[in-house]
């Protein structure tokens, strides 16, 4: 165990692409954590998706051994945190395990909305913040301007900001020195009962669940029996160790130290982020503050493109959940899409990640229904039901009123795109709360219905700002709204998978847009197809796909028979992927495209 005075625990906060992972790599390298041959780009992002998308999903830690200029050897624990709003709770737990943070800002791009949210969390957690202006070697770097921006927007003193190029290694030694001299050592009592924070956990095929911990008081030893206070379970600790970043077993973790434990736990669902781990025989009286069970915010249906893949989807979801307890799922049956699952996620990115992992790691092809939020439906009986599936919407006569969740969104956008962003927010029923300028960038605060945001808001924001706007949000209460169920009917039959809950004021326009879209997506068939949008029993839009008039091969002689037969066999195989509503065949591409909606 290292004396507390020689321990420094820190996180790195940065916007995507501002160089967080590269800086982490340089720090690891400088402390000799890995041989050169073991180095590869962005060591900490271990999943393919993490590396490709430049995001971190699971927290990771690395213990670095650093000999400072004062001759002392320090233990530096780098905590790599998820960097997205969907995982803000996980971020807060990672930050709670640190005494300080490095704020990395691209010296040419400046502060982004996402950086803001995370840095505010760090400030609230009382972390000491070391400001690093990265990519200082780029011709576009403007350290003075960015320094001023940090002071104006965040209110931090940036006069001592360090200048680095994580790519070339320039300035990295100064970062290490600053960690040692600016961050306080951790507090903690080695004699007190064990109190450790469960920072994150994941499933490893060989070790079972690996739990990342930060010890506050007491000592975590191999062989001891530990209790998870919120989960109410107890386990025998099999290994205690640290990541260098390779996992290295050690005997014990003392106060202020960060490392991992394994205890033959089968599912991460048993290990809750933010839980307090204590000694089962001598438990602490007081759990660590701030524990919250994770709650899904966004829901959608996931259906296999081929009905026969349902079993495979079920097994794949179970496997993913082994490693990610924050998403939930239950079986759902759709008339149009068959058997699938209703799934809940922490946010839109989380939804995308799970979907992508199902497709990539498990080879599934999926149809996802439109994302939905959780509505609170107050019935005339006084009962309140939460619903996230339009299919479950109670009859309007039994409904007193419906509430929907709103968010507070923070958007940063260059001046020239402000108009377009304002227009987008207004279209989405937004209410402006604040508009300030930082140099030529506007900092916008809007209240928005979450429902309007889960519907491609982020894509639209990126497109109207040519990729320059950055966006972050937090949930901000429930508001009563005039919400209705918009149904889509094909030849009079409702297509459950296309039903949505929308604001009455927007229902007609969306119904019209969906009908027009579907008209182009549903191929002409032998029979005329009527596509209608309805609110309750009232039809608000109609389009017609006219019946085919001419579809016959002109020449079919001896040599053409084989070709035509093979074409029919191919069509037959293709038809398995069609969804049938009444007499109408709807290609699944039509569902996928219709569910994306509203690309104007």
């Amino acid at each position: 165990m290292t004396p507390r005075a020689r321990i420094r625990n820190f996180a790195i906060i940065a916007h995507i692409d501002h160089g967080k992972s590269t800086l982490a790599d340089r720090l690891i390298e400088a402390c000799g954590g890995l041989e050169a041959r073991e180095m590869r780009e962005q060591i900490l992002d271990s999943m393919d998706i993490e590396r490709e998308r430049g995001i971190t999903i699971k927290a990771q830690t690395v213990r670095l051994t650093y000999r400072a200029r004062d001759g002392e050897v320090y233990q530096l624990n780098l905590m790599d945190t998820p960097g997205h709003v969907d995982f803000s709770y996980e971020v807060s737990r990672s930050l709670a395990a640190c005494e300080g943070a490095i704020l990395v800002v691209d010296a040419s791009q400046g502060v982004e909305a996402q950086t803001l949210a995370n840095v505010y969390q760090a400030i609230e957690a009382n972390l000491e913040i070391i400001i690093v202006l990265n990519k200082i070697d780029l011709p576009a770097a403007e350290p003075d301007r960015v320094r001023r921006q940090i002071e104006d927007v965040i209110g931090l003193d940036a006069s001592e900001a360090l200048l680095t190029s994580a790519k070339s290694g320039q300035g990295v030694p100064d970062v290490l020195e600053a960690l040692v001299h600016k961050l306080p050592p951790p507090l903690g009592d080695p004699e007190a009962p064990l109190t450790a924070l469960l920072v994150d956990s994941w499933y490893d095929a060989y070790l079972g669940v690996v739990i990342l911990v930060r010890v506050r008081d007491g000592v975590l030893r191999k062989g001891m029996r530990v209790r998870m206070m919120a989960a109410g379970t107890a386990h025998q600790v099999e290994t205690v160790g640290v990541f260098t970043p390779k996992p290295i077993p050690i005997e014990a973790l003392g106060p202020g130290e960060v490392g991992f434990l394994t205890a033959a736990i089968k599912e991460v669902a048993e290990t809750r982020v933010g839980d307090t781990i204590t000694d089962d025989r001598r438990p602490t009286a007081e759990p660590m503050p701030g524990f919250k069970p994770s709650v899904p915010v966004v829901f959608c249906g996931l259906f296999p493109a081929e009905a026969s893949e349902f079993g495979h989807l079920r097994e794949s979801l179970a496997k993913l959940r082994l490693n990610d307890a924050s998403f939930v799922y239950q079986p759902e049956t759709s008339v149009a899409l068959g058997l699938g699952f209703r799934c809940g996620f922490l946010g839109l990115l989380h939804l995308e990640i799970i979907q992508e992992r199902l497709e990539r790691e498990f080879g599934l092809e999926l149809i996802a229904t439109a994302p939905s939020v959780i509505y609170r439906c107050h019935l005339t009986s006084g009962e309140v039901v939460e619903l996230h599936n339009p299919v479950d919407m109670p009859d309007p006569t039994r409904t007193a009123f419906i509430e929907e969740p709103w968010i507070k969104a923070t958007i940063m956008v260059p001046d020239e795109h402000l108009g377009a962003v304002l227009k987008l927010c207004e279209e989405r029923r937004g209410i402006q709360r604040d508009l300030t300028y930082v140099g030529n960038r506007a900092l916008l605060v809007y209240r928005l219905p979450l429902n309007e945001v889960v519907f491609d808001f982020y894509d639209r924001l990126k497109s109207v700002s040519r990729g320059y706007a950055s966006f972050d949000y937090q949930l901000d209460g429930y508001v009563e709204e005039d919400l209705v169920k918009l149904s889509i009917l094909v030849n009079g039959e409702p297509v459950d998978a296309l039903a949505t809950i929308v604001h009455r004021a927007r229902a007609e326009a969306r119904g019209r847009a969906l009908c027009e879209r579907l008209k182009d997506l549903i191929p002409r068939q032998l029979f005329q197809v009527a596509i209608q949008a309805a609110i309750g029993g009232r039809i608000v839009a109609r389009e017609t796909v006219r019946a085919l008039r001419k579809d016959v091969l002109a020449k079919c002689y001896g040599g053409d028979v084989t070709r035509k037969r093979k074409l029919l066999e191919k069509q037959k195989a293709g038809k398995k992927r069609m969804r049938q509503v009444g007499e109408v065949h709807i290609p699944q591409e039509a569902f996928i495209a219709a569910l994306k909606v509203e690309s104007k």
Partner: protein
Amino acid sequence: MGFGLYIHWPYCRRICPYCDFNIYRARALDETAWRQAFLAGLDHALRLVGPRPLRSISFGGGTPSLMPPSLVAAIIERAALRFGLEDDAEIALEANPGSADAARFADLRAAGVNRLSLGIQSFDDGALSALGRDHDAAAARAALTQAQAIFPRVSFDLIYGLPGQSRADWRRALDVALACQSGHLSLYQLTIEPGTAFARAAARGRLALPDEQRRADLYDVAQERCAGAGLDAYEVSNHAAPGHESRHNLIYWRSGDWIGLGPGAHSRLTLDRRRLALTEHRRPEIWLDAVARARSGEVECETLSPAQHASEILLSGLRLGEGIALKRAEDALGAPLGAFLDQARLATLVAAGLVQGDAERLRVTATGRRVLDAVLAELLA
């Protein structure tokens, strides 16, 4: 139902921009090698099938009117010798007006050809040049007159659905055609096939074909005009006065047996109650070489499953006005044709007036025929 022989001649003087058949630009060729190959192919087919009189021989291509008439004569003679010919057997050959002259026609007639099918395509010079043909309207008319003087039966082809073609244009073209036809017409709607010059032009936006409504209208015009002139639409694209139908093509559409010889030719044979689909090598030089070495140009022999056979019976038979004879289909399949169909969909199609059936036959209605491909996809999927 009859037994047919198809001979594929893969050469043309020039390649038409809409054609995706297995064809090659004509060049100096070794007539002896081709003669030996076709004759060897016939001998091989006899060993496979045994003697069985031919109802028809059909020379197609390519441009078989470019074949040396002596080669045509040798093939007919050998086929008659090996298999025998039914009384009144049809011996048909496709010809292009660009390679037609009276002497050649006379030689082909003397070789035994009794039905000529002329690729006239249009009586309009503008349309002919748009279609990349090597003849003009005058040459087409001249060739037709000569053919009608020499051959007992003459048919010709027209292509419609050209860019900009109106219903009135097509009506006028049909009036000309009907005035000079002698019992049989093939009317093909222009189709853009992948890999052709037209496909490339269409992809670049240089070929604006009529939309589906117009195409349906033009098809309807053809049906009306031919019916008015007493030519029955006995197949999707073929119209004939009673008794003038192509006997050879009826073998295809009724899913009979035929032998196809020549590069890329297909055969269908029923042997020991198995339905065989045979294919010959596509490339002419490879085919010639294969026949020279192995006595056969066959590259593939597939046994069709009853379901595949049923598909072929449907996709071919429903093209005919007479439809499918259910008893014959059941004999061929060993089970009723209905066992291979989606009965619920069939009922829907019948109720919608697209398909008709009785105890003896299954056929599509005139409306159903116009959308036959979609009907087939419904019935078989």
